[in-house]
């Protein structure tokens, strides 16, 4: 089974709407990373969370790591077409090496103008 589950798998929103993407782990998260990927391109680092309860924001994107450190959410406020792409969560998990990132399958976001 997948160690990192992302939901939803895909999302279509109207421009200007808010949205949330979730990433749930079956193990304790030591570090949680959010990346964005556009077709044909590599992964672009968005932000990293380490402490339970931590919350970070960059422009209109906010990521949170829950207190128990097994789930993270990515929230986009007032979505724009430029937010479209695939959002991937990656994590360093208990039982794995501290340098190894395990990724979810990604959430495909489409923003309709």
């Amino acid at each position, binding site marked *: 089974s997948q160690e990192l589950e992302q939901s939803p798998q895909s999302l279509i929103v109207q421009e200007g709407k808010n949205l949330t993407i979730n990433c749930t782990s079956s193990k304790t998260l030591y570090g949680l990373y959010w990346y964005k990927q556009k077709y044909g391109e*590599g992964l672009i*680092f968005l932000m990293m969370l380490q402490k339970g309860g931590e919350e970070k924001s960059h422009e209109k994107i906010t990521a949170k790591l829950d207190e128990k450190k097994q789930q993270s959410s990515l929230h986009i406020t007032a979505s724009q077409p430029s937010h479209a792409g695939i959002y991937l969560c990656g994590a360093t998990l208990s039982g794995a090496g501290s340098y190894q990132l395990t990724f979810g399958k990604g959430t495909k976001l489409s923003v309709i103008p």
Partner: protein
Amino acid sequence: EAGVVQSPRYKIIEKKQPVAFWCNPISGHNTLYWYRQNLGQGPELLIRYENEEAVDDSQLPKDRFSAERLKGVDSTLKIQPAELGDSAVYLCASKGWRGGEETQYFGPGTRLLVL
């Protein structure tokens, strides 16, 4: 600052042929990773280098895949012979610090199609 560079960007080959991918990490980054990303999936680690040493290659299919990072800078990943199931995007990443956070920086990837 230049990012992670990969070449070629695209490669189409027939099965049983060899293929090689090249990666130049961000200057000063000692840790280099090769990932494989299948369609609709997240990247999966193939191998990790610390300088010129492969410290984690447990996920590398060693019967047909090989990698090297001879001088601890750029790296090559090779498949010989390629199989249909090797069609995927091969991503290179290097690890470093930015804004007080240590993270992996990814190249654009090489998209491989095996016919």
